[in-house]
């Protein structure tokens, strides 16, 4: 049987147009609230259009109307059947002092794994340089690190004025953007079941270990600590957190022991990934400023005791922040019983 298409379109068009108008308002004005009557009307229009789609699928093969109705149903379906919580109004302070450290602690095992991998790389790099000094040329990709540490220290300590004047801000911007890109990359490589993240963290550890052992063996430990501590105590944990995000993603992909679908597992961790990577970006902004304005200055311009002390204070504050911040709030609220958000 074939329906009277023209009559059908003329009769139903006004309902389709009304649904389309409501959808435009809902979609284009996220802050717009609709009252109960409008919700009922929206539901009625959705059901009526669904019935029209069913009718046209059964009785006519007109593809354009079919596609038009499908496009309306697709849009309305997303709004009617969405039961995930809408995003709250942006509250940066609450997010920073509560959500971010809580998320970090929730995935502490992934962070520990990230730390262990980097530490393994650190040991490997350190051992490689201590047993074979020629390995430095291969391991260290930066030209200024390949020379003799003592010569570099002597050269740096010769400067008595602001030798970075006119390039400090540019340097800070470069450090921030470069390190953030590396961190996003570390997280994104989690999609390779964590293998890419693992390699990246290990190679970072190798470089760090090689530099450390190179300066320690040259008896320039104080310079090394004063140079790396101010920015490193924030930058290195930031990269570890990015690796943590990568491993969280990898764990969701592997889904060992989980009885939920892959899509559900990925959906469950999506907000945590974003929280971690945004937190990492903030940490790297801070580290970029410190690296450019403090770390690159040495004695006699900046005393080493000040630089090391500054780094120690940062480390204490960061540790306290990540381990304690947001704990009280969490206790106040009842623990979430539903392990997975309803779908």
């Amino acid at each position: 049987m074939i329906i009277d298409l023209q009559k059908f379109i003329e009769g139903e068009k006004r309902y389709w147009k009304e649904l389309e108008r409501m959808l435009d308002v809902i979609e284009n004005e996220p802050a717009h609230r609709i009252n109960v009557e409008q919700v009922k009307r929206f539901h009625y229009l959705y059901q009526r259009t669904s019935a029209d789609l069913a009718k046209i699928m059964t009785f006519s093969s007109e593809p354009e109307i079919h596609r038009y109705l499908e496009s309306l149903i697709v849009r309305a379906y997303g709004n009617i059947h969405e039961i995930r919580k809408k995003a709250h109004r942006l509250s940066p302070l609450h997010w920073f002092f509560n959500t971010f450290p809580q998320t970090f602690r929730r995935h502490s095992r992934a962070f520990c794994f990230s730390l262990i991998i980097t530490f393994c790389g650190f040991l490997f790099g350190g051992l490689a340089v201590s047993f074979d000094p020629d390995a430095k040329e291969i391991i260290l990709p930066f030209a200024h690190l390949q020379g003799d540490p003592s010569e570099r220290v002597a050269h740096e300590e010769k400067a008595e004025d602001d030798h970075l004047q006119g390039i400090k801000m540019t340097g800070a911007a470069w450090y921030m953007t470069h390190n953030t890109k590396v961190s996003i990359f570390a997280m994104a490589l989690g999609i390779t079941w964590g293998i890419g993240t693992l390699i990246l963290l290990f190679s970072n550890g190798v470089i760090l270990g090689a530099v450390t052992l190179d300066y320690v063996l040259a008896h320039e430990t104080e310079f090394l600590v004063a140079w790396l501590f101010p920015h490193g105590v924030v930058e290195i944990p930031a990269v570890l957190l990015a690796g943590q995000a990568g491993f969280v993603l990898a764990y969701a992909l592997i889904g060992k022991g989980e009885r939920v679908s892959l899509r559900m597992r990925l959906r469950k961790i999506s907000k945590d990934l974003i929280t971690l990577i945004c937190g990492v970006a903030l940490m790297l902004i801070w580290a970029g400023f410190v690296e450019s304005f403090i770390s690159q200055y040495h004695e006699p311009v900046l005393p080493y005791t000040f630089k090391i002390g500054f780094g120690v204070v940062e480390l204490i504050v960061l540790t306290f922040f990540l381990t304690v911040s947001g704990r009280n709030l969490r206790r106040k609220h009842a623990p979430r019983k539903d392990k997975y958000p309803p779908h």
Partner: protein
Amino acid sequence: MPQEKTNTLLIKTPEGIIFSILLAGPVTRFLAWTVDLAVIFVASSVVGAMLGIFGIVSIDFAHALSILSYFLISIGYGILAEWYWRGQTIGKRLLRLRVMDVHGLRLQFSQIMIRNLMRFVDSLPAFYALGGVSCLLSRHAQRLGDFAANTIVVRTPQIAHPDLKQLVSGKYNSLRDYPHLVARLRQKVTPQEAGIALQSLLRRDSLSPRARVELFEQIASHFRSIVEFPDEATYGITDEQYVRNIVDLLFNVSHHKKRRKPRRSAQVVKQGSVK
């Protein structure tokens, strides 16, 4: 059994309605990305030039702002555009593409962020090669970012209502004089056959003359085999006109009913005039 790769995703609603979503292929998506790349380049150049004003205060500061603005635009453009336009960037709008949740639900901000941040891996080793391969192999044409974010990219073609008036336009249809055959035709023709006839008429101008003649000859002979109208009803009309009349009969019932009313009133007037 592995499910086959198709260019549509079927979603069944709790109301029992199944609707299909057209999935975008890697080539269209690559073209949209090229447009977006150009937009990023232009936006970065404009913003960089504007920030050059800060060079009056400090060249160092202006350089730093330029580096930061390029970074923020290149990463933030896709995220903000897809959030503001509900799954579309300028390139996607031009190519009529849209990012959607894989279940057809409302797109969440975290999904948009993840799929955009995952571009770092998808773009490896160059020109989105990894993402392109993933898109080709994936059942729902997803790059790795879509996979991690539970999103798909769909095509949203422009929807136009069929202009039936243009086809029938109230012309005399000789086949209507045989209502019993019309009823049989409407009973026997399947929706698919009717759809083919309608589409062939709607698209007839895009055909070459030879193909047009051959196509309508085949369609007309098919409909003749279903219901055969008398020779006097089809005498002198071309195959295309025949198909047009068939479509008129199949889709335009109201037109048929409307035509009867004036006849009755005309009879009343005639009777009145006789009196």
